[in-house]
């Protein structure tokens, strides 16, 4: 059945969203480092660390944290001239950043939330290395909010202000390389209630929250700065948390495909129930493959490894059953094996293949007492991995008989998901004793104008057309536009530079990402002071994008637009008029349009069109 054919209401679809948005503050949440993202090659030094699981204040160990720590991994961190000892976990954090707190309260207010009386910074155990400390600092700031969608209201359960994790740069055999630039950037996490009933509503709710976030003008923009997690369950399924959905327009698809996965797993569980299926004991079956031609298995055995197997009684044909496009029940088993370091699994629904012969499959079945109704899964790896991985497969297979497991999954680019870790629990939280509690003052919140309101105002007040108004309001340079207009720049001009000109330059492969707000403001100022013609703005921005360290004045020189005063302009125009003196004498003012073209060709960017035209008229007038 294709995913779009599901009847979500009768399946009992329940979905919720968790939206993570980086804030665009001057400094990080718990130190004075800037929130600037760097290139790994700019790193100045590296440090290496190990992490060890610790118990919560209630004396419990968290399942998710424990699973992450089973593998002894070494983490390496890249440090920059924009990071400090706090990110390196070598200095205590500062108090909560005021600006981040103000923006988060603004967001809470836009979401109609109640702000918590006293914020307690917590440590959420995360020992995959993405936090040097082994925990993420996070605080619950808002509760009980609500947003509207066309299918009814969606409750907003909580708003958390927390620190962003370190960026993963490279996965290694025995660990991970992380970059410290992103660690500590303020992040808000917004969780909706389980009120969403259709994939479309999920998307609409995410869009609405995104619009509210951007209305503050204080959120980061661009890839990776906003991430959506989606929690999905159907009535007979289980709560599954899907991490890391980067594109808004993927949300409906993710929900559709998760519904498909859970429905298929429910069907498979029913079928396994009927077959009275079971999972047998794991065994060493290395002997079966001693002379194998399979590259994968032979390779593992050649380097001292072994082959382990688990008989899956009553599973024949179901391990290979597709539950999402290109993903089978066997893929789920394989994900668990991979978490424990194996490259993957083979199972009898797909064998003989990959160099494994029919005779070997028969011998394998015989070795583990599997009949024709049964399936067998195998792992080939070093002895420790092979044992751990096959146990994980057996565990996951046993769960398949029950139905859908509760877990955290990772979104793939195709909209499908793969197993990440068990759902995290409350046991991973304990108080951050280095940061005192904060008592926020909700009376200080300034509620920003919504982007929807801005679109209307830009049209009414500035006379922008609706398309440009929307482009500017939703664009990432909205705060810059407002600042420029505030400083007296003509709104239509500012809007067309910030949207049209920048888009054109990007199309011409100009590195516009290098242009900072200060570049634009300086260029606007030169135009206002008549030191640069509007027509030259594109050229000057091009120079600045290529050489961001230049001043705007130097960029004007560099673009060849500098130092032209009216006398020089007149000189050029007189030259043009004199070269065409016959035509001027004959046609008088009728020669204007032809000569104007020639003048503009020589003076583009050095003087604006109006000046040129008035001087040209004057000079023609003198001669006719």
């Amino acid at each position: 059945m294709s995913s779009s054919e599901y009847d979500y209401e009768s399946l009992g679809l329940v979905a919720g969203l968790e939206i993570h948005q980086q804030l665009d503050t001057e400094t990080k949440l718990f130190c004075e480092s800037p929130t600037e993202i760097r290139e790994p090659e700019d790193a100045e030094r590296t440090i290496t660390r190990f992490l060890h699981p610790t118990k919560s204040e209630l004396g419990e160990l968290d399942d998710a944290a424990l699973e992450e720590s089973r593998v002894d991994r070494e983490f390496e961190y890249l440090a920059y001239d924009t990071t400090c000892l706090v990110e390196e976990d070598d200095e205590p954090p500062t108090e909560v950043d005021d600006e981040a707190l103000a923006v988060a309260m603004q967001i809470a207010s836009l979401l109609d939330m109640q702000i918590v009386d006293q914020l307690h910074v917590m440590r959420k155990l995360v020992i995959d290395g993405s936090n040097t400390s082994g925990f993420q600092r996070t605080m619950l700031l808002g509760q009980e909010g609500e947003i509207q969608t066309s299918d009814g209201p969606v409750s907003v359960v909580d708003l958390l202000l927390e620190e962003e994790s370190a960026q993963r740069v490279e996965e290694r055999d025995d660990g991970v390389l992380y970059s410290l630039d992103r660690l500590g950037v303020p992040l808000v996490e917004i969780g909706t209630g389980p009120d969403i009933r259709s994939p479309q509503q999920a998307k609409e709710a995410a869009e609405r929250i995104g619009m509210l976030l951007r209305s503050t003008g204080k959120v980061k923009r661009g890839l990776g700065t906003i991430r959506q997690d989606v929690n999905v369950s159907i009535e007979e399924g289980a709560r599954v948390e899907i991490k890391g959905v980067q594109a808004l327009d993927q949300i409906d698809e993710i929900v559709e495909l998760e519904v498909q996965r859970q429905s298929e797993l429910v069907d498979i569980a029913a079928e396994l129930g009927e077959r009275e299926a079971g999972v047998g004991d794991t065994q060493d079956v290395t002997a079966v493959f001693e002379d194998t031609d399979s590259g994968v298995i032979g390779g593992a055995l050649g380097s001292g490894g072994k082959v382990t197997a688990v008989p899956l009684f009553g599973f024949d044909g179901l391990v290979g059953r597709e539950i999402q496009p290109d993903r089978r029940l066997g893929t789920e088993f394989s994900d668990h094996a991979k978490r424990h370091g194996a490259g993957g699994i083979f199972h009898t629904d797909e064998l003989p293949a990959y160099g494994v012969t029919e005779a070997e499959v028969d011998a394998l079945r015989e070795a583990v007492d599997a009949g024709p109704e049964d399936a067998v899964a195998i792992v080939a790896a070093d002895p420790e991995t092979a044992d751990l991985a096959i146990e994980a497969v057996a565990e996951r297979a046993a769960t398949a008989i029950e139905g859908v497991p509760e877990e955290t999954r990772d979104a793939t680019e195709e909209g499908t998901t793969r197993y990440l870790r068990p759902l995290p629990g409350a046991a991973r939280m304990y108080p951050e004793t280095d940061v005192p509690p904060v008592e926020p003052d909700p009376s200080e919140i300034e509620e920003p104008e919504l982007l929807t309101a801005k679109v209307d105002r830009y049209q009414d007040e500035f006379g922008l057309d609706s398309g440009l108004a929307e482009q500017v309001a939703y664009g990432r340079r909205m705060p810059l536009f407002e600042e420029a207009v505030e400083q007296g720049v003509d709104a239509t001009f500012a809007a067309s530079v910030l949207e049209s000109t920048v888009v054109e330059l990007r199309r011409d492969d100009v590195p516009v990402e290098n242009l900072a707000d200060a570049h634009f403001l300086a260029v606007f100022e030169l135009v206002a002071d008549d030191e640069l013609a509007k027509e030259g703005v594109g050229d000057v921005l091009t120079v600045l994008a290529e050489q961001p360290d230049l001043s705007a004045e130097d960029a004007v020189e560099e673009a060849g637009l500098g130092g032209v005063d009216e006398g020089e302009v007149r000189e050029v125009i007189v030259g043009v008029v004199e070269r065409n003196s016959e035509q001027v004498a004959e046609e008088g003012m009728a020669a204007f349009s032809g000569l104007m073209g020639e003048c503009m060709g020589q003076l583009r960017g050095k003087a604006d069109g109006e000046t040129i035209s008035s001087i040209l008229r004057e000079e023609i007038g003198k001669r006719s």
Partner: protein
Amino acid sequence: MNPGDRIRVTHAGVENEGVLMPSSTADHLVLKLDGGYNIGIDRDDATVDVLETDVYDVGDEDKPDDDGVSEIEFDDDLPTVSLISTGGTIASTVDYRTGAVTAQFTAEDVLRAVPELAGRANYRGRVVANILSENMDPSIWQQLARAVHEEIEAGADGVVVMHGTDTMQYSASVLSFMLDTPVPIVFTGSQRSADRPSSDNVMNAVCAVEAAKHDCAEVLLCMHASASDEQCALHRGTRVRKNHTSRRDAFETVGNRPLATVDYADARDDGADGETADAFDFNREYAERGAVDLALADDLDPEVELVKFTPGMDPAAWDYLDDKAGVIIEGTGLGHVHTDLIPRIEALVDDGTVVAMTSQCLEGRVCDRVYDTGRDLLDAGVVEAGDTLPGTAKVKLMWALANRDDPAAAMERSLAGEITEESQPWR
């Protein structure tokens, strides 16, 4: 209503359920919600229902759980290492009263907290104190020295002292003077508390235990050598100083490389089955295991002050030095103070106080023969403590006053490696 109860709180139209936690302020109830978050709720106008009492045992200081290594087995093939705990960050947990971190573990808990120690040695656990190291005083130093002495007498092949980092260098120094030791005595601690996954306690403890199994029978201090979890440094107890407030590698041997480095991966892997790890790289000669007989001289004269001269100081600040048995001056440069203070020093010496000069430069030795002020100080009866670190000089003088006939002369000679005989840098 008590901490640990499950309660429902309604305040400003928001209803929250969770476990009541101890609160550090009177105005707020602190609630742990089911998701694990704590929030503070204004007590005023809050309606509270207790749903269930004693759901959790929170804030209970001594609650060992039985799932860990509680029985420590003795294996005749393994060396025996005594773990002596004095408190500090290496064995600390959250204090609910202040919300800050305090020391609460026994030495046995350390084994539970650092399972990586298992199998490396037989352990004897002992708690001498349970204090933050800023609360150390000479009487605890004496208790500590006696405990170490008893452990070695009882057959320990090495001793690891777990200590808060703030004053670890003082304790290590004082034990260097009090004990002649045939086995290693290794101080260690952590700069990141043990309740966080990134704590440096695991690596420091593993390297310290391996050092305690090693052949270098001195009083040592074992802490991170860099910001990375790669190597620990072994410092001589009398030459080490905490030179950073927060970094893992805060401790440095002043004016020289550390005595040795310990490679963590090698220490962890090589020593895991009780073997002596091949993980050490020594930069200098050291006293070998068994070279001296165990001896304890634990008398101290606590009447010693360490004073710092700074420009513009009120000379009255030194009035309280009357009747002190000893004074260590942390002078400027080669060992100077304002000329006007010299008569004051002369009066102290005349009254029988031993006054020794060290330098706030920390690196390099004092030399009061170069300038007039120095010569005047020598004439006033000041003794030069060479390149002895000021803190080390203080505990040394406490010890020398109680154990040596001529304590002033003792300050000019190296008793436990505290004075570098020859200024050869970075050997």
